[in-house]
């Protein structure tokens, strides 16, 4: 009896608390859907690894490798940049492919060097003078390079049987034949190597992880950074900045409710100057939060903070201003603190999941990656990654700076328009 009375009261209360209802039912469904799309590959939309392939060899073997890679459904191969104004661009070179990886256009580039076709298969000990396939990688995508290395071996086994046979014959002539004195010496040398390097079975096979196709992988960005601390500092930082500024902007709601806002607006302070003041404070708060976060990253996780101060300031200020404007918009949209709490939680968690604060965007399906561009998180994280991961100059930040400041201006303008309801009754 008493239990049912308590349940009835709680149900009646919940029914009238729209904010709690939204958090209870809408947020989990939205969140579930987002992660289902990211991980579940809804409608066959699982992410393809973007890859640039440069064939400098133009041999039969290299063409077979390129064709084999192109046949892989998990790869999205590019051999030339996208056409500019309908004009087809020249094919990638090793240099332009490396630049593309550095810029973050693709996580990987495969360069088939000149002379590769003469000895495409590697059965014996590694011969440094033999050209091997170059795998230029952005190590922030840890999965892509391992996957492509494996696929190159698969392509070697399945797409080029004739080359395999030819190479096998070469190797037979090289290692077998009559066991002349010379052959004996070579065999002995091989055995001696194995004995001296008990863990070098793979090295003997290909010199590069037991690979038939010799592949040399090289990180072209982030080589000075032990791990991806900067990525996580930015990713997590932006999400919490959004929460902080939304909460701080909610002070407007408290002031409206207490009558303080009325009193302030009856002084010389106008609504625009009041909102600009709040926005300035919230931006400062957000920037300080970023500074604390990155300093902690430097002190505890060896984040290379001091070498990137100018870029950090530019990105920090733009991100802080954008999140502050976002907070102002949320506060002026809502009428109560409870509403603000629910709406901000809903929007910020959705933005953070799509925008890459919880899961790197490059691992998401293409459509999801594009959707991420609608979020502050994605632009902020991209900017910080450019500075701390790719060591790009500040001048390269113009797209992120432009978009974040644009977002700030638009959101603030809408917030100011909505705040007219507080101005006059």
């Amino acid at each position: 009896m008493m239990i049912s009375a308590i349940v009835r009261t709680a149900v009646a209360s919940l029914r009238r608390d729209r904010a709690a209802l939204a958090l209870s039912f809408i947020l989990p469904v939205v969140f579930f859907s987002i992660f289902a799309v990211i991980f579940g590959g809804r409608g066959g939309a699982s992410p393809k690894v973007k890859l640039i392939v440069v064939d400098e060899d133009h041999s039969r073997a290299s063409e077979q490798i390129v064709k084999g890679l192109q046949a892989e459904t998990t790869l999205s191969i590019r051999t030339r940049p996208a056409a500019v104004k309908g004009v087809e661009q020249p094919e990638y070179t090793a240099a332009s492919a490396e630049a593309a990886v550095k810029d973050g256009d693709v996580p990987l580039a495969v360069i088939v060097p000149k002379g590769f076709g003469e000895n495409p298969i590697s059965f014996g000990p590694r011969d440094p003078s033999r050209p091997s396939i170059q795998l230029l990688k952005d190590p922030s995508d840890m999965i892509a390079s391992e996957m492509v290395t494996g696929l190159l071996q698969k392509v070697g086994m399945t797409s080029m049987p004739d080359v395999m046979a030819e190479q096998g014959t070469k190797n037979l002539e090289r290692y077998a034949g009559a066991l002349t004195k010379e052959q004996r010496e070579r065999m002995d040398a091989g055995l001696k190597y194995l004995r001296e390097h008990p863990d070098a079975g793979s090295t003997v096979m290909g010199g590069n992880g037991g690979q038939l196709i010799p592949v040399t992988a090289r990180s072209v960005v982030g080589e000075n950074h032990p791990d991806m601390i900067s990525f996580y500092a930015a990713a997590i930082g932006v999400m919490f900045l959004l929460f902080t500024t939304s909460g701080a902007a909610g002070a407007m709601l408290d002031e409206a409710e207490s009558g303080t806002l009325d009193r302030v607006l009856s002084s010389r302070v106008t609504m625009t100057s009041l909102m600009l003041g709040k926005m300035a404070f919230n931006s400062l708060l957000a920037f300080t939060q970023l500074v604390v976060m990155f300093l902690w990253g430097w002190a505890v996780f060896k984040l290379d903070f001091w070498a990137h101060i100018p870029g950090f300031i530019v990105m920090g200020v733009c991100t802080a201003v954008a999140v502050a404007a976002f907070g102002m918009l949320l506060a002026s949209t809502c009428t109560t603190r409870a509403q603000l709490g629910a709406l901000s939680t809903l929007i910020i968690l959705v933005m953070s999941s799509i925008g890459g604060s919880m899961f790197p965007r490059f691992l998401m399906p293409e459509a999801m990656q594009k959707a991420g561009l609608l979020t502050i998180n994605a632009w902020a994280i991209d900017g910080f990654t450019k500075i701390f991961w790719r060591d790009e100059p500040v001048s390269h930040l113009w797209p992120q700076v432009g978009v974040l400041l644009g977002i700030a201006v638009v959101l603030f303008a809408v917030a100011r328009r909505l705040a007219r309801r507080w101005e006059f009754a």
Partner: protein
Amino acid sequence: MPLRVASLVKRFGALTAVDGISLGLRSGECLGWLGPNGAGKSTLIRSIVGRVMPDSGSISVFGAPAGSTAARDVLGWIPQELALYARLTCSENLASFGRYHGLSGAALDQAVSRCLDWATLTDRAGELVKNLSGGMKRRLNMAAGMIHAPKLVLMDEPTVGVDPQSRNNIFEMIEKLRDEGMSIIYTTHYMEEAERLCDRIAIVDHGKVIALGTDAELVANAFGTRSQVIARFAAADDRVASWVAERGGRLVDGAAEFTVERPSEIAGLLDGASKAGFELIDVALHRPNLESVFLHLTGRALRE
């Protein structure tokens, strides 16, 4: 003239909160707006400070239109709500509102200490607002409205929810302002406050000024030289109502209200009631006051 309101109308949907009010405030005068909750007093005040846009009519504050910077600079507003920053101290609150009015440096410091002194909060200057008693918060709320030394003060029920002791402190603060020649608008639904503090009183009901004058003028206009007799019956039924009406009285909230020129007329009323067979439980002779005037004009008690 510090304040002139002409034909002011403000509607909120179907509700007409202010319905064609016109009045003026003389220099150095304390004008009371007396009326029940929902009479339109706060809407009128908020229109004067520029926080409500009237549908028609005009307001001028020392010749400047309401809401203009010139008007804001000379207006002090003490809202009904405790419009303070709870996490700031008393002096921080006053300094904040002072800055919003353009004060800075030594002028700001002087204004803060003047207001703390006026509100007798000097020894509490460093106390957080949230730790103050209800009466202290009220006094600080008043001080915040005076920080920029306005020439006209609008006080919107400044004693709401205050204990008698604190109310007395607030009265003393207002009387000090009056003595200094401040022009004041004072809204209240407490008759005693209006009687004690105000030079003239406007009785406001349903968005209209239904009477305006000094305390004595209002009583004289409503009752002349007559006194009020309030009689309560054991059963206030239709028979009683018609008997009361026959004798020029009326039944309000179960009590019969008559006016008499001389106290001796009470004997005739008592005799008549007895003959009609009505059981009287209480009879009182009143010198009419503002409450009586309000009841007389509206048929409702002031605090309904």
